[in-house]
């Protein structure tokens, strides 16, 4: 009887290990960096616009999007604005106050990369669902006048966010895949981001 109980417990434990690989949530003082590939599918265009590069997330502060191909550009998303620079020259600065829809998208990216799924689950009104080795979450805005720059966002998650598909009106969509993600103290992330930026210039 004891043996059966132990076996059942062990199986349960093993099962929970195999099934319970919950997405990682960044700890306080921790950031994330890694690589990305973005494919922009634009309706009627010959092929998707592909870009690759590195990202550096310092939660609550900023997300640095360092595009390397097809050419070097750096986009910094903080809680106030989206700033873009080519080399040392700033070419765009958009205030998020003016485009609250962008702020929603920015927050969604930061929360998903940070593993702050609880907040996104609340926003989506549904829980993470498991499909095979991955977790998924679909974020669809409520019906009514949509001031958001997307009609749906689908997150695919392993240990970290692995891919996000942003579906827009008129059939446009962005598919961003993330890989080589690593956590590190935020100070280190900042150093890495700066170093990458210097190298790009």
């Amino acid at each position, binding site marked *: 009887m004891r043996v059966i109980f132990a076996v059942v417990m062990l199986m349960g434990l093993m099962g929970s290990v195999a099934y319970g690989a919950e997405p990682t949530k960044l700890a306080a003082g921790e950031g994330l960096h890694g690589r990305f590939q*973005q494919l922009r599918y634009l309706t009627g265009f010959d092929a998707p616009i592909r870009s690759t590069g590195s990202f550096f997330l310092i939660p609550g502060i900023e997300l640095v999007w360092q*595009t390397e191909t097809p050419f070097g550009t750096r*986009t910094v998303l903080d809680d106030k604005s989206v700033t*873009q620079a080519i080399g040392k020259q700033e070419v765009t600065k958009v205030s998020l106050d003016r485009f*609250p829809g962008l702020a929603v998208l920015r927050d969604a990216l930061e929360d998903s990369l940070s593993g702050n799924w609880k907040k996104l689950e609340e926003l989506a009104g549904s829980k993470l669902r498991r499909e095979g080795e991955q977790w998924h979450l679909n974020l669809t805005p409520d019906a009514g006048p949509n001031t958001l720059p997307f009609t749906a966002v689908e997150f695919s998650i392993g240990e970290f966010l692995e891919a996000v598909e942003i579906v827009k009106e008129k059939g446009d969509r*962005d598919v961003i895949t993330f890989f080589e993600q690593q956590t590190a103290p935020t100070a280190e992330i900042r150093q890495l981001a700066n170093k990458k930026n210097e190298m790009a210039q």
Partner: protein
Amino acid sequence: MRKTGFLIYLLAMLFAIVVITVRFTDGFPLETNILALLPESEEAEWIQRAEAAHQARGADQLVILVGHPDFEVAHDASLKFKKALELSDIIEIKGDTAAASGFAALSKTLFPFRTGLLSDLDRQRLARGDGKQLTERALAQILSPVSIADADLIRDDPLLLFPNFLGAQLGASPLLQSKDGVLAVDDAGKWYVLVTGSLTGAPFDRTFQAQARNAFDKEEAALRAQYGDIEIFKTGAIFYGEEAYRQAENEASFIGGISLIGIILLNIFVFRSVQPLLFSLLAIASGITGGLAVTLLFFGKLHLLALVFGAGLIGIAVDYAFHYFCERFQPKETPPAARAKAIRSGLTLGLVSSVLGFLTLSLTPFPGLQQIALFSASGLTLAYLCVLFVFPLIDRGKSFSHGEAALTRSMLLYRFWWQGKFKPVRWLVIVSLLVVGGFGAFRITVDDDVRRLQSLPAGLQTEEQTIRGLTGIDNETHRILIRGTSSDDVLEHEETLRFELDRLIREEHLGGYQAISEIIPSKARQLENRELVQRQMAPHLDGHMKSLGLSGPSPYVDSNDVVSVEYFDGENGFGPLDRLRAYSVPGVVVHLISLSGVRDSDKLTALVDRSENIALVNQAEGLSDTFGVYRLRSLVMLAIAYGVVWVFLSLRYGLISSIRVMIPSLGAVILAPCILALFGQPFTFFNAMSLMLVFAIGLDYALFNREAAGERKSRAMLANGLSAISTILAFGLLSLSETFAIHAFGITILIGIVLAYVLAPIAADINQKTPEAL
């Protein structure tokens, strides 16, 4: 003579009542807009017309922010507020002020003309041949993880020139975002929804102010009852104006109440009878009736402030009554007719001097002064007739048996000026006054700045700052009017001027501006832009389109089709643009550039002075300039009035003696501002205005001194004393007011009247026995 005088009085009163009745058939023709008191603008006609058209289009805005943590609550409450104010006919909403659909429609309208629409920065880049940077910027924006450029936009504008053009204009706009058809801002967990509208009436019109305030308060209370913890902030000239009026009214009522009680007590204490008080009221009522009728006859309506100031001047009628009743302080019984006769010469000279002075004042092209002068001159004449010809008919009183002590005390001042034993002290007083006057004269400072002269309520200022902080809406403080022969001509002028305005912004002399040419460039500028895009981008465009996976010809069309201001006439109207289109008739088009954060208006003045087709308008500065001009003009007219009175008095007293009669009034008028300067008080238009009263009353004091001889002297001195006390009670107490205009009026009269009373015995002629009757 007595019967004739009474008949004239009766006929005049009858005529006055008929005029008033006729004018009152359509209600009390009272003008409450303070700006109506000001003279017509001396600006060029095109500026006047443009300003009038701008005002008529609802330049005066009311701004309200409704805040609540729940957007839906703030949204609903704001819509209710807006609807209530519209239904109360306080505001009207022109176009789509929410700008949500308005801005989207504007974008859609302008998009076909995108090749000619470049931001200043892009224009500069292209002008220096930096086209590659624009392709890289477009690519960077398209590759952004939060890009909002969709396939349609990229296909038609792969360089994203149009969104960057619009973005540059948005950069100067407020922090508000469009949400569910309203403009709102999210701040610290609270949503604030904006309610704005153009006022349907004038913000300085007392009646409209009261209506607006009632409607606002009523709706605010209703919304608070319904939603509880709702926050409401408001701003607009109408609230400041209403608060200022309310404060002035409250103070005037309080101070007026105290002075009224004081005057009643003074009458009862001195005369031990209410009869003088009742007679005084009759004289004042006659004066107001006459003043009202004549003013309505000439002007059609009466300004509230003319009524208040005019009624104050007619208050001199109380002095006439004092002189009449002081004649009852006699040991022997005298008939009422003899009392009137005794004061007739003094009264007549006083009246003629005052009327001449007021009529001189009415020659100024200042409607406010004209009304006050006409009201006072005609009213005083009626009061004079009443005292001289009605009082004796209804006066059944006998001589007062008391009053010996008062009469004796009233002569102290006279003795001081004329008895030999006081000579050293007298000279000391004279020298002291001259020294004080001399010192004060060097310290006189003039201040006509209407912003410093008004004490803005702290509560309203805080609300305005809150609104400014939350929305980024900066008050327009100045505007530039630009004239041309066509809209396109004006746009070209604007573009040249904006180059200079941008420099002023960089040099921090100016906060920002809004101009039509920012959104709709001139035809020449659009064609130039188009040519720049074609020429500079051609080498880069193909490669850029290929990198985007885009095939086909260039989407930047080369044509002469440009967007014009007229495109936005009628149905295509866009609120923010309409506001900047001031005035248009065939051959003359005027636009305005709205300026905010002006830190150095001299720089702007220097800028607009270069062309007669450009004018800088600032209501506060304009009003200040007007105050300055009329402060000076009223002083000049006062000097002329003294000249006219001198000629008149010379007929009776001779050239030299008449100067002596004028010394008390003249001394008070000159010394009062000097003494005020020693206390650090600036000399303003309001001080100059109050010197008119000092002029008239000061002359009366002197004339009664001059005309009263022998034993009558003490009665005249007593009447002068009572007059001085009542004037100080009626006007001097106004110096306690916190409203600068009222304070300045009161303090000048307080000092002026004291000086005029103290100096009045100088006018006496000690050799004179009994003056000739007039």
